């Protein structure tokens, strides 16, 4: 019951957020929503099925550049182009799946490392994909005649570009989260969990789970979600730079799922929110820290680099001391406050609500 209260509070925060914070924070919020989708995918592959991938950036790049290609060169609407971009990433996952099923765990990390560089090479050299000049300019999303790039009025609410993107991305991310939660509870999802338990592949196989099948499904599922993240990224950031889709991005996603909590949909979401809002947080406290460079200044540590340093240290600390991440910390706190000692207003609200 208390979880119902928690959900309501979370929903309220998410709905009010874009109306109370500044543009930079809304932008970070949209990025968190977009990142959460790929993070959920990676968490299924790496957290649940325990296959190590550093290729997420490659799949995201495929999703982003294919979607951008169809939106700009072919003039397709986002609603047509995004599924194609997602599918392209999933197909690439399917193509790599034979390798993924043959070489599992660590070797898969090596294969996906190769993927990142090969995808970069192809995009760098195909001008239809990279837009010719190295940077690809992408138009805004238009949904059934509503251009998300332009301010609109819904009843009493007036929303600008960022706020519209925020709600659109939120809706997509929630749908992905719900779908993944249900998928993980299904036979397919539990098969993925079974092969992911350390050294229990044999057990899984003997229980009738197809180890190869489950690995392949996890791999394709995760590639598709990465593609979807790419598809959403393209029209939102509007300018795609290939350098942003390097190995560093893959590491960022691995950091997200470790910080949030491995193997949990909620963990991916916590992690995405934390890592994407971190630069804003750093920017907010930057005036108090003399070693951080002001915007446009070259001396001192840049905000981006400082953010990477923070989450790098955090991931190492979590791996050493709390491998379950934020989700684990939340769980520990919850266990420490059993229902009996909860404040009365919470327990009352529980009885009244149900």
């Amino acid at each position: 019951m208390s979880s119902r209260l928690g959900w309501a509070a979370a929903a309220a925060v998410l709905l009010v957020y874009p109306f109370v914070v500044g543009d930079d924070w809304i932008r970070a919020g949209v990025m968190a929503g977009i990142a959460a989708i790929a993070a959920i995918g990676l968490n299924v592959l790496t957290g649940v099925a325990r296959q190590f991938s550093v290729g997420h950036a490659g799949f995201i790049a495929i999703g982003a550049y294919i979607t951008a290609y169809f939106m700009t060169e072919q003039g397709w609407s986002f609603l047509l182009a995004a599924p194609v971009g997602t599918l392209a990433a999933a197909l690439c996952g399917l193509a790599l799946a034979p390798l993924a099923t043959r070489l599992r765990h660590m070797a898969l990390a090596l294969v996906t490392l190769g993927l990142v560089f090969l995808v970069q090479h192809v995009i760098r050299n195909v001008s239809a994909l990279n837009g010719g000049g190295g940077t690809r300019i992408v138009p805004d999303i238009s949904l059934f005649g509503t251009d998300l790039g332009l301010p609109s009025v819904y009843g009493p609410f007036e929303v600008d570009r960022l706020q519209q993107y925020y709600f659109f991305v939120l809706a997509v991310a929630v749908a992905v989260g719900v779908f993944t939660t249900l998928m993980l509870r299904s036979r397919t999802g539990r098969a993925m969990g079974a092969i992911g338990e350390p050294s229990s592949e044999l057990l899984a196989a003997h229980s009738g789970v197809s180890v190869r099948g489950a690995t392949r499904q996890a791999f394709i599922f995760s590639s598709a979600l990465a593609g979807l993240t790419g598809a959403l990224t393209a029209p939102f950031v509007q300018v795609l730079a290939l350098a942003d889709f390097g190995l560093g991005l893959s590491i960022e996603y691995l950091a997200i799922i470790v910080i949030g909590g491995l193997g949990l949909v909620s963990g991916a979401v916590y992690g995405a929110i934390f890592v994407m809002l971190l630069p804003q947080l750093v920017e907010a406290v930057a005036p108090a820290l003399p070693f951080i460079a002001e915007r446009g200044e070259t001396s001192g540590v840049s905000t981006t680099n400082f953010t990477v340093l923070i989450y790098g240290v955090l991931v190492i600390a979590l791996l050493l001391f709390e491998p379950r991440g934020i989700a684990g910390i939340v769980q520990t706190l919850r266990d420490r406050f059993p229902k009996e000692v909860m404040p009365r207003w919470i327990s009352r609200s529980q009885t009244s609500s149900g």
Partner: protein
Amino acid sequence: MSLLISGIALGCVYALIASGFSLIYRGTAILNFAQGGFVVLGGYVAYTLASSASLPFAVAVPLAVLVMGVFGWALQQAMFVRLAGRPLFTLFLLTLMIDSLLITGMNTYKPWSQSPKEIPTPWAHDLTTIAGSTVPTASLWVIGISIVVLAALAWWLSRSWLGLAMEVNASDHELAGILGMRVRRVSAVAWAAGGALAALAGTFLAVFPQLLDPSSHAVGLRAIPAVILGGISSGMGAVAGGLIIGLVEVYTAAYAPDFLGTNLHLVVPYALMLAILLVRPQGLFGKAEVHRA
């Protein structure tokens, strides 16, 4: 001929990095994704000693190798000892994050990252003529020193209990402990040696005609295809894989047709790695893993 020499010189650098990578894998079963970071850091340490502290090359480089050896050992003591028995995933992520921290840290440290660095050597920018073509004298020394170091390493591993312990350790960690192998000692030595080899490779990346900057990290990463190509379970394989990747890279850069795209030589190692993983996952010189299921 000059292509051959520069290919072999690059191959030697790859062989050094790959040997460190393979050594850490054999000693600890960890794929050390931070090896690229070690290489660049080692190069900068050597640069600082040779250039800022103006020590002679012959003193600065062994000192840098020593510093990075201690660094590898310290990392093992601080982190990997605590994590013995943890899932491989944890260890893999840890090395990846250490790498990310090292690179970001070096990018942030302006005295190093501001401009590409060259370590002054006794051979400066001298050229030597071999079989009618001129090659940098430094490249010949890089090849010579690498051969000596790699041969010494192979000899040491074949003669000492450590080499044997590593073989056992890599194939079965638990068994090594039961047999009375000092597992921690082995892993400490492996990390120290990995760091030391990376420092030497990093130095060579900053010796004429090369320049060192944080993006040299990509060279460290391309040693991973070299290890996989040669076979990670074999010391010989790392050296052979390194030489092959070095030669292929240099010749691709010179002769690749235009329609395959610019900078093809930077991805060819990965394409080779994917091919070998499909055809012969254990690598050219590796022993196939035996699965009983």
